[in-house]
């Protein structure tokens, strides 16, 4: 079943913290070029899943395979994890997106400066180059981070709740970039809570509540029965949970 066009393939993946699963026995694949939303209640393992794909969290069991070794992934974590008091300009923050090409020591060439300007223009931050990141509003910061994603120029893009606490205009602008990435045949995986947005923009959806509930066409996945099922499945933490033997036999 493993097709050559899978951008990410999950083989019975269990991700978690300590020995406790946050994503339990996920099996399937994200086809290259798909635009997929990951939805589910809080604590369903959505962010954990993205960390697993990026590779910052190793699976407790199973494998996550990426298309081709070292294939690039651009990852936007939830906003709160950046030190915004650090004395850094917007320009330098966005320029970090060039890391995969410039690396530790590489210089930034003239055409790279043009690319950075283009990325800033694409997110509507022209004129903000010299501003310290500490002076940005939440929405402007998110625009800057999207500019950095643009520069990363990665075939796979992971977004973790990119539009939380972002105003409608900014959300619309950034959603245009997501559509543009889809048109460029990049694979985009976004964790989202706004189901109307998912229905409008994302053809594919993974509904997850620790265990995958449904995965496929958005219209079918987001049925009332599935959503109810997902809400019931994020049950309380069980201090006496037994060792899971599924798939071991």
């Amino acid at each position, binding site marked *: 079943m493993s097709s050559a066009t899978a951008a990410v393939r999950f083989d019975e993946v269990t991700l978690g913290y300590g020995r406790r699963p946050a994503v339990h026995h996920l099996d399937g694949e994200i086809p290259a070029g798909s635009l997929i939303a990951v939805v589910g209640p809080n604590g369903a393992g959505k962010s954990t899943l993205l960390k697993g794909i*990026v*590779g*910052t969290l190793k699976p407790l069991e199973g494998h996550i395979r990426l298309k081709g070794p070292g294939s690039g*992934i*651009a*990852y936007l*974590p939830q906003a709160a*994890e*950046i*030190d915004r008091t*650090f*004395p*850094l300009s917007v320009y330098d*923050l966005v320029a*970090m997106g060039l*890391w*995969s090409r410039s*690396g*530790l*020591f590489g210089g930034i060439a003239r055409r790279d400066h043009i690319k950075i300007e283009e990325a800033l223009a694409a997110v509507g931050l022209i004129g903000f180059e010299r501003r*310290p*990141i500490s002076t940005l509003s939440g929405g402007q910061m998110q625009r800057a981070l999207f500019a*950095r994603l643009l520069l*990363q120029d990665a075939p796979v893009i992971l977004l973790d709740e990119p539009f939380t606490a972002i105003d409608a205009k900014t959300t619309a602008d950034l959603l245009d970039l997501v559509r543009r990435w889809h048109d460029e045949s990049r694979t985009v995986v976004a964790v989202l809570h706004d189901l109307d947005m998912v229905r409008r923009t994302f053809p594919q959806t993974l509904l997850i509540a620790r265990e995958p509930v449904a995965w496929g066409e958005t219209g079918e996945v987001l049925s009332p029965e599935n959503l109810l099922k997902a809400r019931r499945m994020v049950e309380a933490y069980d201090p006496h949970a037994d060792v899971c033997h599924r798939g071991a036999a």
Partner: protein
Amino acid sequence: MVDLFYAPLAEFEFMQRALVGVIAIALGGGPVGVFLMLRRMSLTGDAMAHAILPGAAVGYLLAGLSLPAMTVGGLFAGVIVAVAAGLVSRFTALKEDASLAAFYLLSLALGVTIVSLRGSNVDLLHVLFGTVLALDDGTLLLLASISTITVVALAVLYRPLVLECVDPIFLRSVSRSGTPTHLIFLGLVVLNLVGGFHALGTLLAVGMMMLPAAASRFWTSDITMMMLVSVLVGIVSGISGLLLSFHAELPAGPAIILSAGAVYVISLVLGREGGLLWLAWPGRHLEA
């Protein structure tokens, strides 16, 4: 004027040596201090300065007041504590400050115990407060080497260091250089503390890192400028501290740190970037 500023440094060789020593310490210590500050590790530097003590003390126990023995011992102890604390905080639930506190308390108690095994009060004072007015050729060479290594290493590591401060998750998603960068940086901190230890002693070595760095934060919000300002503050404090000690017959190490402290207080009050004076009288608000 000449008598006040120039003559002491021109006439006495021990003053010239001390001058070269403090300039070398300022060159390496300032930029390292800036990164410690920006990484919210200011107290880490302090803790690690204490962590050097048992190693230097073992060196002293084995070989007396010998430069190589105490340097190697100090480096050894500092690196062990830095790496152990770093690894514990990376791979367990304990945060870096807590794991470091645990290790440095352990090593400080050990160090004081070892020094007390065989030590006159003079030797103890030497270990605790250094001997900036008695730097021999070997020590000067060591200080110069440390500042050279530091400046070169910071230039090489600059990008991942900054990235690890601002957005460590991003760095981890694009590169594996985060952990080695962090460990090398801790190594630089230890190296500069051992250098500072010879001139200023275990208790004050960290002063030539943190005070210039903290002062520089009040003058600029650009990280490159911050490093330059911190070096400048370090050199100015070193020179004025030496002159102060010469004219007022004060112990040199504390005089240098007091000078740095004075520059810090002046910066705190007058600094263009958030100094108290500018906070109290910011002027009328702008149009946009």
